[in-house]
């Protein structure tokens, strides 16, 4: 026993090192479990508050571009007002028709922290559970899809960004309708890769890439970017398509969080079918 204590005292530095290192590596490996607890993430009250204050200053420097974006979005929204449409006489609508139910609810939020220089990039928003935001909601800006809500605290939420190597988004080519998965390779914050498009598909440079709507997170047809380069390895049966993102992640200020009103219904139905 005495020898054991002597051993510990003699090598306490190395032993302590191994213990602490093991704890931190466990943190890395259990990453997802800890994300859910949101205690150690930037949506916690302390770090969220600091980012919020700093962002108030940084945002001032971007006011010009933000104003332009907002003006453009106003114009777009005005064009969608009922007054902008001609009433048609041969259009009938049942009051209780489920097709006319609102399917998606949009909530606007402000970006208070954002990164583009890591392999796992996250965005922090200034709204959280109290504003009706829940994990797994889609996030878009007026230029296209931004990411998916990962964690929420009462007043903040973190978003796993499109340029995060952990995120895969179901996307399709708008022209031909072929769908695949959109992934980031961790290098340039302006480009992502669209994989799993079969070689018999017709792909042209400049084609639009939009969300497929197969998951209940994003509605179909939200812009992601356009095709910049099409590559086909020898003997490969799938294209490797480089997509230029429509959203500039370096300059992101206001976003909208999409709530799907019947997403539980869709998920449960799909699960039931799978279990059969």
């Amino acid at each position, binding site marked *: 026993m005495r020898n054991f204590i002597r051993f510990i005292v003699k090598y306490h530095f190395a032993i302590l090192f191994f213990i*602490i290192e093991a*704890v*931190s590596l*466990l943190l*890395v490996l259990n990453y997802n479990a800890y994300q859910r607890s949101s205690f150690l993430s*930037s949506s916690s009250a302390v770090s969220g508050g*600091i980012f919020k204050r700093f962002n108030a200053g940084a945002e001032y420097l971007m006011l010009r571009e933000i104003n332009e974006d907002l003006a453009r979005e106003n114009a777009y929204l005005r064009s969608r007002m009922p007054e902008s449409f001609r009433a048609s006489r041969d259009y009938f609508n049942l009051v209780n028709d489920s097709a006319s139910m609102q399917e998606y609810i949009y909530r606007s939020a402000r970006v208070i922290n954002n990164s583009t*220089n*890591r392999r796992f990039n996250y965005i922090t928003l200034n709204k959280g559970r109290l504003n009706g935001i829940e994990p797994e909601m889609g996030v878009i800006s007026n230029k296209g899809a931004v990411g998916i809500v990962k964690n929420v605290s009462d007043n903040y939420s973190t978003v796993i960004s499109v340029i995060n190597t952990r995120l895969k988004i179901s996307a399709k080519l708008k022209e031909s309708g072929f769908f695949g998965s959109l992934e980031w390779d961790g*290098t340039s914050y302006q480009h992502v890769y669209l994989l799993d498009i079969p070689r018999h598909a017709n792909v042209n440079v400049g084609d639009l890439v939009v969300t497929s709507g197969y998951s209940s997170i994003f509605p179909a047809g939200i812009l992601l970017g356009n095709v910049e380069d099409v590559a086909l390895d020898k003997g490969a049966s799938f294209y490797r398509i480089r997509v230029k993102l429509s959203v500039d992640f370096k300059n992101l200020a206001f976003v909208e969080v999409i709530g799907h009103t019947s997403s539980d219904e869709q998920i449960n139905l799909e699960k039931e079918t799978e279990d059969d």
Partner: protein
Amino acid sequence: MISYLPRYIFNFIFFTLIQVLVLNNIQLSGYVNPYLYILFIITLPFETPGWLLLLLGFSSGMVVDVFSDTPGMHASATVFMSYLRPYVLRLFAPREEYQPGTIPTMGYYGISWFLRYSVILVLAHHTFLFFIEVFSLAHFFSTFLRIVSSSVFTILLILVAQLFSQGKKQGR
């Protein structure tokens, strides 16, 4: 020893804030991410006991982790660097040993000693960090490039920070 306390508390807060508010937003060509916060560990006094060194390394890494949503990544790299620190210090010890009442900075031991000492620690930290981040050897070359370019940038920043604190001392 106690008289160092306010200075190091200030260093800890200052370097962490610089790191999470300014440097984490810097990106040059997708490869360069400077990490200045490790200067806090590098300049701790010679007499710092080993257990305290490891705990401080863990907590400073963890604080940066909390702000960048990467639990454990920076913490493990900084703990690794803190573990190496006593050995690197012993390796570069001058012939007449380290004087009591001094700390490992450029002001006391000169630029060439400080460069040798900090380059090794910075390289150790960045190598550990970037390989933990990628978690595979698949992108070995691009990771290697990131390590080297980021280390160069970090060392430049460390030198600039050291020059500033040196100027302050002479002014007193």
